[in-house]
């Protein structure tokens, strides 16, 4: 029964995503379903519902969540345009699957079956999960939502709550805080990362190159292990990976509005994603000039600023901590030699990139093509913008390792693979496009 109810919860996330894209982003126009984008927007819709309910002091229950899902399914029956779009897209998806190479589908299905068996053989069992993410999820589920008191019940409480809200949503529908089936979310996130990457790499045709790029992503050990291993599957990093990948794909296709929505959602998942959102806001006027019209640019900038302000306002309202910013920086600089500490962090990254049991040869391929195709990246505004955001994000990690109150070595050891996972699929996608796959993929603006 739990699996069925959890599946309904996941379905409702996609349903909310369709409504968000149809009514808010596409304003009632036809659009092609992209399951990864729909899931991401659905997560955003759930986050909005929880925060709105919190501000209005409305408390969720199993019944009210069931009623909410039922109400949000009504447009699919009452709005003829939405009904037709949904039917057409489902048909297209089924046809798309039929066209995929059978051998690849078979191999991937076997791999997926094994992954599912690993994932659902145990409950989540990780420090970060029970220190904050799922701990907060259970609290929100018990209390009926977020309040000023329970928002900071577990420390560190400076991250936003997209992942705890999503887990709570599943708990409500399940009627219990089931920490086995909540693992459906990281599993779906992994699948959608693969789907999104596949959409880019096999858009025109299936060939040995597309298979190779896709295989590097799918079989990168740490990516699937984040789903399969009980100590990582309660963390929020794979959701940030999905948002960054979607955002990068949107930047490359010059869909800057969607790109900022995904970056905004990433910042509502983990504070780690903040540098990319800030970088986007600062670079957008230069990077997107001449690529889109002035009015679109203004709209995108306004949305980016709104995400930033909403993020900070909610933090202020719920009085969330800011463990890295609430410090005396002059003391840090006087106590920690800048060069020595940052050199240590860079060496840690150098070591991490070459851990082939964690990354396979993913980073090896990325670095070779990054150097070989550097001129292509520099000449292409979209690719340069996307890689600059990855660079800013990386600088963010280095900065946090420098200003962290915790022991630097301990902080690095416990988080370096997770933070690299956040940018890994997005970086691989940029390199794929830089390797001669750009021309046919961009939309004419």
């Amino acid at each position, binding site marked *: 029964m739990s699996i069925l109810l959890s599946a309904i919860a996941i379905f409702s996330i996609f349903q909310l995503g369709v409504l968000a894209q149809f009514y808010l982003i596409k304003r009632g126009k036809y659009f092609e379903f992209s399951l990864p984008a729909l899931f991401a927007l659905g997560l955003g819709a759930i986050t909005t519902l929880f925060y709105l309910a919190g501000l209005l002091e409305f408390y969720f229950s199993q019944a009210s969540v069931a009623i909410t899902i039922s109400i949000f399914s009504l447009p699919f029956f009452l709005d003829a345009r939405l009904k037709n779009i949904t039917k057409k897209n489902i048909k297209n998806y089924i046809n798309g699957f039929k066209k995929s190479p059978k051998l690849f589908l078979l191999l991937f299905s076997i791999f997926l079956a094994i992954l599912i068996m*690993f994932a659902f053989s145990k*409950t989540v069992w990780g420090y970060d999960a029970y220190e904050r993410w799922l701990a907060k999820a259970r609290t929100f589920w018990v209390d009926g939502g977020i309040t000023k008191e329970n928002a900071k019940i577990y420390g560190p409480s400076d991250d936003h709550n997209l992942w705890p809200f999503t887990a709570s949503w599943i708990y409500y529908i399940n009627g219990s805080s089931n920490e086995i089936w909540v693992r459906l979310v990281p599993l779906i996130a992994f699948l959608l990362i693969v789907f999104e990457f596949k959409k880019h790499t096999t858009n025109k045709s299936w060939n040995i190159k597309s298979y190779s790029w896709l295989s590097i992503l799918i079989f990168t050990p740490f990516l699937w292990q984040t789903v399969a291993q009980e100590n990582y599957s309660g963390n929020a990093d794979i959701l940030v990976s999905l948002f960054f990948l979607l955002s990068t794909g949107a930047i490359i296709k010059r869909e800057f509005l969607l790109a900022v929505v995904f970056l905004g959602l990433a910042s509502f998942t983990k504070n780690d994603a903040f540098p990319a959102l800030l970088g986007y806001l600062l670079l957008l006027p230069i990077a997107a000039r001449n690529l889109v019209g002035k009015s679109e640019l203004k709209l995108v900038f306004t949305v980016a600023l709104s995400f930033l302000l909403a993020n900070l306002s909610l933090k202020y309202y719920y009085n969330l901590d800011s463990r890295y910013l609430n410090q005396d920086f002059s003391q840090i600089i006087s106590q920690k030699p800048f060069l020595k500490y940052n050199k240590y962090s860079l060496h840690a990254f150098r070591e991490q990139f070459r851990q082939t049991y964690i990354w396979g040869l993913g980073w*090896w391929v990325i670095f070779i*093509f990054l150097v070989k195709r550097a001129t292509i990246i520099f000449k292409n505004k979209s690719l340069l913008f996307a890689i600059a955001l990855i660079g800013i994000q990386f600088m963010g990690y280095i900065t946090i390792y420098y200003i962290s109150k915790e022991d630097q070595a301990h902080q690095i050891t416990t988080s370096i693979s997770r933070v690299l996972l956040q940018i890994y699929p997005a970086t691989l996608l940029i390199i794929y496009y830089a390797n001669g796959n750009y021309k046919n993929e961009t939309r004419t603006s």
Partner: protein
Amino acid sequence: MSQLISKLLILGGWFYISLALLIIFGLFSSKKISDKLPILILLFGAAFTFLTSISALYENFSQIKLFFRTDKEKIETSTFNQFSFAKIIRETLTPQHYNCVFWSWDVPTKYIIQESYPIRLETIWTFESATKCDFVVSQFVSRPELNTQPIIVFENNYIYKLKEE
């Protein structure tokens, strides 16, 4: 010179050395080779990554049988019986009391704290700090030093009442 080479080998390893060599080789090779090099790199990268994953899956393959247990079995073994113990805590203690848990071992202690909610458990490390608590939860180990009998004993987990009403 030999020190420099050994340092390069330690810092670079085959990963960075092969990376540098391939980039240099790509720069100076003929057009015919340089055209074929990217696909060869890509194929090698994909094959290596695939084999690394297969080897990791194979190493843990025996664990796959754990999937065929019931949800209850999975939860109890994964949480070292702390799921059921948390249920007992929720039924026994009340939020009005000052409830504590001895820090035992990181994930189980974090788990019992969150799973016991709405009962709040404050973490304590020493017997001295236990004196302020109305009830003390101890995971996996009895605490005879508290000089009182536990009111609940469950699978080697204990709840002690330290203060009378």
